[in-house]
């Protein structure tokens, strides 16, 4: 399947067909998840209504980790098989992953204030997620630091693979250090320890976040491919476009000439 979508034109057609469905599915899951978690789910016996921040915080954390895993896998595919879309996928996913990490840190901070009495503690998991955020920023900075964009893409792939060591540290930090952040309640040996009335809306929110991520990823990949096409058109131009160029520059969307 990877080979099938190595052709950018085929990817554009397939993603264009799938995109409206993903958008609708994401909207539905998010709407369902938000109503269920914020209104219908019962309050926690200990935390009361503040537990509802969990329904944003935990899926955002899961997506932050998954996005980095996706970037690492795409980077490995790019380095080993030189798949043409792998680097585009990794670069498209990075800002989305960074945004999810920021949401996770911010909602965690908002949750920590009423629960722990502190906006921030230097707990093992909080520290390692902050490191993940800086790994995202470092990746974006490295990819954009070169005049030659393909050199930047290859350097970024290598950096993403080096930083993968942080992911097990984040996952197991709550087991290795007995500190403030609560230990794993869902993905653990022995099954989830969280009650079903809270687990189900959590999973729905996670599905919504995953679909949102997929939608944004496909959108950004399509934009990146369009940008490449536009740049190539500007550099090497078509005869008709070159004639018009002096009178009416092309707009950003290829194929549409706008008189400015």
């Amino acid at each position, binding site marked *: 399947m990877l080979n099938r979508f190595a052709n950018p034109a085929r990817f554009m057609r397939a993603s264009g067909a799938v995109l409206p469905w993903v958008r609708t599915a994401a909207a539905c899951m998010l709407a369902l998840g938000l109503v269920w978690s914020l209104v219908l789910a019962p309050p926690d016996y200990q935390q009361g209504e503040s537990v509802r921040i969990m329904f944003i915080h935990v899926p955002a954390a899961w997506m932050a980790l998954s996005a980095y895993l996706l970037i690492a896998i795409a980077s490995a595919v790019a*380095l080993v098989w030189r798949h043409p879309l792998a680097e585009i996928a990794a670069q498209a996913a990075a800002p989305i992953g960074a945004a999810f990490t920021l949401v996770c840190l911010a909602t965690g901070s908002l949750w920590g204030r009423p629960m722990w009495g502190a906006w921030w503690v230097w707990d093992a998991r909080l*520290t390692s997620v902050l*490191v993940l955020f*800086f*790994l995202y*920023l*470092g990746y974006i*900075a*490295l990819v954009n*630091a*070169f*005049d*030659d964009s393909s*050199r930047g893409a*290859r*350097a970024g792939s*290598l*950096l993403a*693979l*080096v*930083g993968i060591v*942080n992911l097990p540290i984040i996952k197991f930090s709550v087991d290795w250090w007995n500190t403030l952040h609560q230990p794993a309640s869902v993905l653990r040996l022995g099954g989830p320890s969280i009650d079903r009335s809270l687990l189900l809306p959590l999973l729905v929110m996670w599905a919504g976040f995953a679909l949102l991520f997929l939608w944004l990823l496909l959108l950004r990949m399509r934009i990146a491919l369009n940008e490449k096409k536009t740049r190539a058109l500007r550099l090497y131009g078509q005869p008709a476009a070159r004639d018009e160029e002096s009178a009416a520059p092309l707009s950003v969307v290829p194929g549409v000439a706008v008189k400015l």
Partner: protein
Amino acid sequence: MTPLLGLFECELRLSLRQGGDIGLVIGFFVLAVLLYPFGVGPEPELLGRIAAGIIWVAALLAAVLSLDRLFAVDHADGGLDLISLSPAPLELVVLAKGAAHWVTTGLPLCVISPVLALFVDLDPKAIPILTFGLLIGTPALSLLGAIAAALSLGARRPGILVSLLVLPLYLPVLIFGTGAVEAVLAAEGARAHLLLLGAASLAALPVAPLAAAAALRQALD
């Protein structure tokens, strides 16, 4: 083996000949540490509590600032192309350069640190652990720094980019280095922290040359 020893010797000789190199690193380290008493006030209790952190952070910053002479000079004048043509694998070249970097940066920092610890009122019984921690932690700094230095060859702002890339990777070394000193001051064993510090250096030993060599090959394309 001989080309690698030759490279190691050459790097050492170059830095020692331009005596400024080691002197600059030590000078920056000393200045960075001495800024803190002026910044937070000279009270011995306060300084003593943050002394380990001050020294380790200054060591990290000195290491980061000295990374630009690892590959950039050779890359600019074409020496890196010649080195890559040699029979020695690029990974071992990175190891040789990293070792030379450690001898000219990490080792001087370790040697100076007991003296600086007195300036920041570190409890004398923790000074051996501080020095030993720096001794086994600074190889990790040189090796991980080599990855970042190799990745940023040819970038627009290599200095600041290297700092952004490498400081997240340095955090475990910092955490365990200062943790060891605090364990000693709290009369608990520093063994766990020192073992993890050593583990970080040993883990960096195979991984960093592989990653840095791959980055060098990308830069040389």
